[in-house]
């Protein structure tokens, strides 16, 4: 352990000094012409202490000093894995489904809100996995499809009163068309250039949504989007049908769960189909795939379209979930700076 620490302490110290030099000007130089060290030093001390503990654990683990702790833990993990393997897979899937079905009964509003975000991100991640993971095209403008889906539902609902269920396939379809529009000109590119072009496309979509005041109301977002509603039969004084607006968060959670499950099943089937194998072959070697008779052009376009469908279609309802404003549905990491 001492030997390994000797090798590493010099670069570790230099790194910490370097970090001090980087954080001090941001925190220690003040507009009134004074210098202070307290704040920067406190922050630095936290980082240094934390990284030192991590480094120490890493070195101890590497030199075998942590074996009394790690050995029983890994034995436990092995036992747990073996126990899990005994049960068939469908038992686990059923358990997960039941757990997620009764989740809103026992939890608060906040937890349900987080769970809805989780389910939306599941759909987004699965769609992105089709484009990046299977077909191997790094698409950084992916979030544009999310915006297209959200705005489609919000605009259809506010302007024409189209219901949630009807706008679901419309939003997904429009997102697919947007995917093809973005995908078609970029199919010639690979790697970094593809990444940067898709980033540019995503930014164009965001700018248009942000600036087209007459259509999208710009940065203020679209207000007054209705939550999804369902028709419920009533037996109050004879048989009738009542429209019930699903305003409660629980209902939105169940819809999100439903859409996420469908997306998971669909993507899984795509993954193990002929198309999924063709995508993987394109990812591994495009030239070889083309020589083997894979229509790379069509399949790459299809990857874009399928990848765009997946975030486009569950997201309409993130608009009602996000305080009824479609603007909030757009992520914030590349917000405008002006």
């Amino acid at each position, binding site marked *: 352990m001492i030997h390994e620490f000797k090798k590493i302490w010099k670069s570790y110290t230099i*790194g910490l000094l370097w970090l001090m030099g980087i954080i001090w000007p941001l925190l220690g130089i*003040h507009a009134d012409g004074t210098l202070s060290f307290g704040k920067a030093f406190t922050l630095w001390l936290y980082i240094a202490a934390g990284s030192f503990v991590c480094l120490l654990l890493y070195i101890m683990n590497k030199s075998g000093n942590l074996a009394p702790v790690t050995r029983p833990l890994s034995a436990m993990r092995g036992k747990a894995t073996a126990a899990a393997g005994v049960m068939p897979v469908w038992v686990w899937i059923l358990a997960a489904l039941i757990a997620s079905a009764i989740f809103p009964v026992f939890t608060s509003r906040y937890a349900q809100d987080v769970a809805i975000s989780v389910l939306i991100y599941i759909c987004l991640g699965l769609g992105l996995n089709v484009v990046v993971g299977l077909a191997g095209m790094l698409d950084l403008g992916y979030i544009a499809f999310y915006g297209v889906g959200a705005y489609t539902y919000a605009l259809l609902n506010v302007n024409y009163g189209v219901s949630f269920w009807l706008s679901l396939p419309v939003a997904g379809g429009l997102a697919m068309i947007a995917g093809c529009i973005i995908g078609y000109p970029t199919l010639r590119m690979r790697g970094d250039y593809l990444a940067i072009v898709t980033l540019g496309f995503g930014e164009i979509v965001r700018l248009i949504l942000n600036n087209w005041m007459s259509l999208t109301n710009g940065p203020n977002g679209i207000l007054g989007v209705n939550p999804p509603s369902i028709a419920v039969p009533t037996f109050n004084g004879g048989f009738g049908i009542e429209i019930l607006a699903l305003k409660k968060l629980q209902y939105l959670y169940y819809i999100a769960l439903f859409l996420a499950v469908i997306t998971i099943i669909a993507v899984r089937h795509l993954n193990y189909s002929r198309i999924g194998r063709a995508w993987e072959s394109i990812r591994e070697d495009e030239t070889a795939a083309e020589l083997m008779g894979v229509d790379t052009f069509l399949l790459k376009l299809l990857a874009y379209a399928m990848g765009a469908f997946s975030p486009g279609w569950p997201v309409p309802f993130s608009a009602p979930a996000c305080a009824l404003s479609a603007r909030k549905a757009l992520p914030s990491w590349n917000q405008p700076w002006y």
Partner: protein
Amino acid sequence: MLYQANPQAEEAMEYFIQQLINGLTLGGLYALIALGYTMVYGVIQLINFAHGEFFAAGGYVGVILLNFFAGRGLMDTHPWLGLFGAFALTMAYCAFLAMAVEKVAYKPLRHQSRLAVLLSALGMSIFLQNALMLTQGVFDKPYPGEKFSGGLVFGDIRISVLQMMIVGLTILLLVGLNLLVFKTRIGMAMRATAQDKVMTSLVAISSNRIISLTFAIGAGLAAAAGIMFGLYYGSVRYDMGFVPGIKAFAAAVLGGIGNITGAMLGGLIIGMVEIFGAGYISGQYKDVFAFIILIAVLYFKPTGIMGENVDDTRV
């Protein structure tokens, strides 16, 4: 009277010249940022997404230093000394920041797939942006630029002191960079590393050191652009690096990525397109024009204006 001045045409001409001057200023800034992209790409074939954050960090450190100097009273007695002091210190700061980022985020991944480094750069960009937000706050920070107001006025054409300073300093930095890259031994080592890392390491040139130096020079230029940007527009924001960063990358691609002269030219073109697009077509969509140019260039001529042919793996 042979020639009668047409007042409307004259006004249009003056507007055009004013836009030309504005475009030159903005183009100079984009050229400075684009150089960092193109140099890093030339040496390690990486799109350094965190480069825009060096620009933003430069803007912030610049405003911190200018406020500090003002608090000390230096800006009242020697405003230009304070300004150039801030420039020098900020450029040094960002150079050190870039070297640290390179060591932490890119060097361990140098032999991994190119996608891994690209995603690491993207993560570093988000990390630096949030670090700036946490230490400096989410609101716009005003730049103390009132000391450098004023300028030349020809009729309706105004050239402010800041614009002259930006263009002058940009030209100075570009000439300095050209001398460094094409006339000195360090520059020769950099060009050699860009061509073949194994071969240069055989003639006793440390490629690690050259890569660090490339990052440092690129970030220094971006930091200078950050201060000028803050002075020109009057404020800085923690996420101001993203959009100029992408536009500067568009400039680098337009000029042919990896080519230093091309990046300067591309920056000028992108700046001009943005200003003329804003002035004659639509101010709201000024950012869209730069992206459309980026996409069009990548689609029709991926090698850019001055770039050499790139092999299949890059395109």
